[in-house]
């Protein structure tokens, strides 16, 4: 199939406008499963099919298999550009269900074309997120998209528009929105328990460098053109497609600033009360870029934000917990996590951790006298997403939130690239008085791909 052949979903065949013909191409490769296991009929304690959400994974990045283990999910297909990976995934899924029904595709459009798929999990490299998410939205499929939302600001805008235009459920893979301790810490800050918030200090894992890599023949089973997709053509080398090295290559990602950092940007937005931020953000970011080698995203950074109202963020890379490297600079590093400093105390959050000064804040119970009660979805992100798909609810990490948090990384990456301070208009999503910076909000996709 070609890129424009994204078919529509859920046919009502009337008036000569047949859904069936739209999806005919896609279905040519789809054979109906012959054997219907008892479990599929709701006979083994699992939810009956009508109560299950039909899910497929596009890309086989982190956590795709968690969908398979859900009782209320029927996992039907995987798409990946690497045959070895998709075959291994099929084996895992088929073993789980005791069937041979899991379909494998090398081209995600065949998943998008399946009328039975309710939701897709997008776990590809970042440069693919926008194209796939928009195609899924057009097909009426709900989307769980891994972080960061997109490679560029313009792509993020397009995903937001598509998700809202087609009314599908969307969740961003920022699982810190499910961390009860982090949420509690944010609620302490938002409800004034540390007085007036002054400063937020963020530490997230540093990037990496590597030596120049020799070009190699494309290995059998890898669709290299499809891996590159909308990114510029490049010769194959194994490190280019390895996770996490591709995060450090600007054609595919903004680097670890967003690739990891968007988790903390998102939590810092929550804690700083910037969910509905309107106004201008001053951003002054500096980075250290690799001098040579395959990687070209900054691997060290110092990023300073000033928000409407005067709250400042100071965000550095950090070492620790097996992440990052401080090599190449004596720049100071913050501790991994987010430290909110107020006029009367501080709150520190990190996964599973909340600390505060004074310590008595840790005994606070957020109650009816507190104005801010954050959305506290119980449990893990994937069950939450499935529940929202079934009940047609908004998730705790909807697409606008995903875009805004990713933008916090994007504007810093652009300031770093230009090596100068910028002013970001959060409403118009433009830099003020800096046309060079505005140009960097988007990047042409390689033909034939488009948003």
């Amino acid at each position, binding site marked *: 199939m*070609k*890129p*424009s*052949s*994204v*078919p*529509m*979903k*859920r*046919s*009502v065949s*009337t*008036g*000569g*406008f*047949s*859904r069936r*013909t*739209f999806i005919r191409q896609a279905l040519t490769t789809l054979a109906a499963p012959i054997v219907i296991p008892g479990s599929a009929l709701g006979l083994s304690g699992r939810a009956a099919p009508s109560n299950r959400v039909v899910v497929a994974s596009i890309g086989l990045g982190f956590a795709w298999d968690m969908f398979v283990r859900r009782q209320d999910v029927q996992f039907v297909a995987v798409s990946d550009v690497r045959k070895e990976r998709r075959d291994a995934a099929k084996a895992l899924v088929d073993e789980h269900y005791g069937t041979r029904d899991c379909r494998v595709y090398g081209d995600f459009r065949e998943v998008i074309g399946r009328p039975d798929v309710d939701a897709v999990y997008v776990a590809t490299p970042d440069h693919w997120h926008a194209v796939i998410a928009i195609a899924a939205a*057009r*097909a*009426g499929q709900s989307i769980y998209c891994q972080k960061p939302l997109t490679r560029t600001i*313009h792509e993020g805008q397009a995903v937001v*528009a598509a998700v*809202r*235009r*087609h*009314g599908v459920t969307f969740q961003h893979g920022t699982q810190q929105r499910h961390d009860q301790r982090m949420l509690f810490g944010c609620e302490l800050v938002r409800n004034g328990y540390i007085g007036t918030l002054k400063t937020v200090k963020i530490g997230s894992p540093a990037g990496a460098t590597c030596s120049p890599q020799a070009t190699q023949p494309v290995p059998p089973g890898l669709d290299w053109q499809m891996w590159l997709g909308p990114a*510029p*053509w490049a010769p194959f080398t194994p490190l280019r497609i390895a996770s996490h090295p591709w995060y450090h290559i600007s054609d595919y990602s903004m680097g670890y600033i967003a690739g990891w950092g968007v988790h903390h940007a998102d939590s810092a937005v929550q804690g700083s009360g910037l969910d509905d931020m309107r106004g201008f953000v001053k951003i002054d970011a500096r980075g250290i*870029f690799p001098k040579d080698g395959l990687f070209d995203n900054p691997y060290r950074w110092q990023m300073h934000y000033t928000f409407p109202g005067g709250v400042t963020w100071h965000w550095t890379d950090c070492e620790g917990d097996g992440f990052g490297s401080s090599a190449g600079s004596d720049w100071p590093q913050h501790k991994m996590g987010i430290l909110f400093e107020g006029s009367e105390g501080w709150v520190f959050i990190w996964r599973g951790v909340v600390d505060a000064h004074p310590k008595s804040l840790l005994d606070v*119970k957020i*109650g*009816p*006298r507190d104005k801010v*009660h954050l959305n506290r979805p119980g449990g893990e992100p994937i069950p939450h997403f499935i529940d929202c798909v079934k009940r*047609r*609810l*908004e998730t705790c990490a909807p697409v*606008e939130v995903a875009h805004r948090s990713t933008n916090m990384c994007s504007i810093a990456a652009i300031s770093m*690239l*230009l*090596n100068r301070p910028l002013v970001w208009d959060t409403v118009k999503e433009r830099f003020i008085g800096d*046309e*060079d910076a505005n*140009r*960097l909000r*988007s*990047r*042409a*996709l*390689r*033909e*034939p*791909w*488009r*948003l």
Partner: protein
Amino acid sequence: MPLDAPPWNTVSSALLSAQAPIPAKRFVCENLSVIGSARGVPVLAELLPDRQLSHAARVALERIPGPQAGEALRSALPHLAGRLKIGVINSLGTRRDRSAAGPLTKLLNDADREISAAAAAALASLGTIESVRGLREFSQAAAEAQQEFVVTALLTGAERLAQQGHDAEAAEIFRQYHSSAYPASIRLTAFIGLLEAQADARSDLISRALAGDDDEERSVVARMISRGPKPAPLERFISEFQGYPLAGQLAVLDACRVRADAEGRTAALNALRTQEPRLRLAALRTLAAIGRAEDLSALLRFATEGSEEEKLAACSGLAAIPDKQLDAAMARQLGAASPEAQLVLIQALAARGATEASRAVGECLANSSEVVREAALEALSAIGGVDEAPAIIHLLRSTASRSLRENARTTLQAVADRVGPHCAPPVLAALKDARGTLRPILLQILGTAAGDQALEYLRAAVRDPDPAASEAALRVLADWTDREAASELLRLARTCDNPNLSLLAFRGYVRLCGAEPNAGERHRLLAEALGLAQTVAHKRLVIQALGDSGSASSAQALEPFFDDPDLIEVTSLAVVTMAANADVQDRDALRPALRKVAQRSANDDMAERARKLLHQLEPVRK
């Protein structure tokens, strides 16, 4: 990396040179995409037919502002085919090049379906009256295989029209596709478009969706009225509430909950009276956000008599309703309520942090039900004050239940922790005639309360004839947090016959010396403590404290212990710790002691750490 202004001739020749490598040309294009101007357009345009460089040229041409880049892209169209042509069409769409509407409309009829589809998407991006008209005309004659991308493009184009103020034209398109003749996903997209394009009819559309039977549309309006960026006023939908089917009613209640819209309270209270459990549950959840003190009876009824889900929702509601009058209302009901209701009220008051209601909760300590007494104790941990302390102590003294006694102890501890020295008087009063196991417990509580009165009593209590009480007093003093207890602890360390208690007292003394904020005074106190240490165990404590909090000048005091086989390792650890925490200059002063650690410590790891610290000092010496 940072981008500088281009030396133009070099750039131009680099891009067109046959010898220049492709990656270099791509690099130049990438840079031009940020700093290039109309001057660079002709040379970039020459690269558009180049299979290896077309994309790189488009990266630049998409970003370069001004009419020249658009003109270059349009001019290239007739000379390109296949994917390269699609790329240029896509770039024209991204640039929203209005001048491209004519050529793109012609391309809708291209024999290559992919080019036709790309042109449709680009025309949609343009979103002008002309471009959308082209799409509409094409859609009327388009083959079935083309309908899919044309419809998608038309809906996107209509959205763009609406964004530019052409609401009527946009609405006409959305209305066309909001028809049962089209698949559900198209209908839904058209419906969403209509909601945006028809601001004056939005309320009617929402109302119809809430009253209708289309789940997808209702879910869209449910989100729109509850969380959208411009949520519609709820007043109308609340007034129509009774006429909606269940799903519509649920959506309205949820919107009232999310937006904390008090207008929905009457609807929620009415919903509580229905036979539909899902509606009752939603109403309870809504009341949690917008309920008032007057709703207490209704919520209490569900909290005690409802289904399990209703009980949970009602209890959550009582804990969450923001109305401050509810605290007093619950406190008033507490005495006369049934035991089940008392439990609910006590727990809700605790969750609400209703300290004003602590008296009413304290009175429940005399309740005949042990379960209620337990709940009251638990609640008082969160909201109890000094006024409740006598009742808690009375329970602690009088109950035969081990569970209640333990709960009373932890509750009293929590109250003492919260109110501090204010809690000492009732505890001291109770201590006057406290005997047996109660006395050590009260002494512990006194330690938590702290303050001058407590310290005075504890100083005396270490001489209590009851060994359990005197030991408890000593243990409390050993944990004392200010220097007032230091002299008593030193005396106890010297005079106590029990070596464990002596060590405990000395540890407390050393801890207080180490906590002295002034570094010079801290050093003096710890040096003095070292002289007063009578046993090896005492000396270890001081040496550790010197390591943790001493400065480099303390190292001299440690020198003699390198010769004591019982103390060399703890001394080595102290020196290494001191060096690791000291700044570089201070660390230099530790050099002799570090050398001794490196040479004499039997612990290889310790010796290695000392060598590393010495090594780090080398550049400073140079």
